[in-house]
């Protein structure tokens, strides 16, 4: 029950102010500022080497800022501290433990928190059911297809009922069909969980299709632009064919290209 109660707390808001990250003296991220609303889906696009992933990792606390600040707020806008359960990560490589079954992989975050075996396996099972992965609980990751492995990785990220879901090009290594299917799945999961989602992607189409707003990091290192609001009639197949979708993609593209020309 304690696990389910988490969804009610709502997504975390993230306030990034003048975030800057340096590696050995060079900027990997220069002055990024963005205010991510509670429950929002934000996509980040930008040139490779522009600091998309750096920004995402900084938000997740995986690396320290050189200057600037990142603060978290609850639904009401009050400042909050985040715990390990509040943030879920999904990486392109999946990062499953090859020696563990699918179920044991999904239960890992709860296991590391000290949740009892019965409870964590129940939670893992429920998550796998939600991801339509029933029947593969006892398989090893190496026995699954790339798309299935990604779904398992998503189930693991979601098993703690995070309030903030960070996705680092999660479907970048998958084929087009699998990718579209997983995009749709991700969208419905995000809505249903109420978690704030931040997605880093190379694909402008994917960024627009999933997001409430798209943040463009222009140049190398990227400078954050004003996020572009996305409003689409629908997010299904019709939505992808709509004129609004095409024009939004063009806007994002233009915002990006303005940066590349200057850099070149």
């Amino acid at each position: 029950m304690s696990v389910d109660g988490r969804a009610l707390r709502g997504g975390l808001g993230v306030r990034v102010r003048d975030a800057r990250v340096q590696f050995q003296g060079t900027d990997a991220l220069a002055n990024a500022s963005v205010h991510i609303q509670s429950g929002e889906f934000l996509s980040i696009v930008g040139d490779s080497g522009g600091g998309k992933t750096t920004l995402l990792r900084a938000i997740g606390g995986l690396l320290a800022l050189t200057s600037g600040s990142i603060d978290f707020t609850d639904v009401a806008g009050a400042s909050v501290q985040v715990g390990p359960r509040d943030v879920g990560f999904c990486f392109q490589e999946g990062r499953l433990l090859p020696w563990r079954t699918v179920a044991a992989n999904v239960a890992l975050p709860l296991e590391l928190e000290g949740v009892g075996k019965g409870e964590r396996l129940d939670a893992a099972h429920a998550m796998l059911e939600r991801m339509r992965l029933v029947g593969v609980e006892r398989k090893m990751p190496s026995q699954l297809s790339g798309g299935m492995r990604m779904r398992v990785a998503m189930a693991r990220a979601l098993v703690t009922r995070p309030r903030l879901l960070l996705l680092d090009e999660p479907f970048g290594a998958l084929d087009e069909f699998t990718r579209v299917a997983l995009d749709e799945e991700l969208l419905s999961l995000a809505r249903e969980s109420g978690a704030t989602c931040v997605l880093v992607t190379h694909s402008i189409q994917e960024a627009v299709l999933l997001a409430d707003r798209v943040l463009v990091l222009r140049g190398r290192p990227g400078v954050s632009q004003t996020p572009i609001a996305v409003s689409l009639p629908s997010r299904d197949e019709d939505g992808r064919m709509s004129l609004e979708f095409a024009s939004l993609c063009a806007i994002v593209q233009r915002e990006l290209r303005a940066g590349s020309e200057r850099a070149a």
Partner: protein
Amino acid sequence: MKRSLLVAMPPLLVLLIALLLWEGVVAAWKLPAYLLPSPSAVARACWEERARLGAGTLQTLMASVGGFGLAALIGVVAGSALGSSRMLQRGFYPLALLFQMVPLVAIAPLLVIWLGYGLRSTLAAAAIVAVFPVLASTLDGMRGTDAGLREIFGIYRAGRWARWWKLELPSAVPSIVTGCRVAAGLAVIGAVVGEFVSGYAGDQAPLGIVITASMREARTDLVFAAVALSACVGFLLFGIVSGLGWLLLRRWHASAVQEN
């Protein structure tokens, strides 16, 4: 079944041909038995001295298995400790390397002084030569743990113990298994060499003592028999270790999956 026959046949055939050649050479040149006994003479000696050789094999097997087990335990524990701390690694690993360079025959007399003659000394000798490959492979395996997986454990704030038990040790298992296979062969060498120095003579004498005693009595056929039996002990231990390794890895690691 067909496959295992295909694997076993070629080496057995080569062995058979070599034995026949050996038999032929001994017969053709009429070599004296103290210089080179024929394979049939060795086989005869095996049978006639079966009680002594059987007891000796058992002794050497106990020393090897016990020494290997001790080495595996110490190697994994020490390797894990060194793998967990850069400070410990800097302080101890070079010394472990140095210790590894000391020839066993040179320390064997010390073992007699400290542990007396018999199984305790020979077991220690086996453990001493077998421990290093296990330690080194454990250390290597732990250090090779995937950085992405480490990050996952960091995200969920896993403790030091959980990191070792649930991440680093499982990651190191393929490497540890390889180290243990090397150690299995070394343990038998260590046991026999240890027995040369510290073996307990008598009716329970281990193979190392059987070898030295038979040499003095010019029973070259018995020397060959004991050598062949110690090789069998090594082969057995190696087989057991490989089998256990396969059991551990078969569900997930490429080295075991390919053999399926």
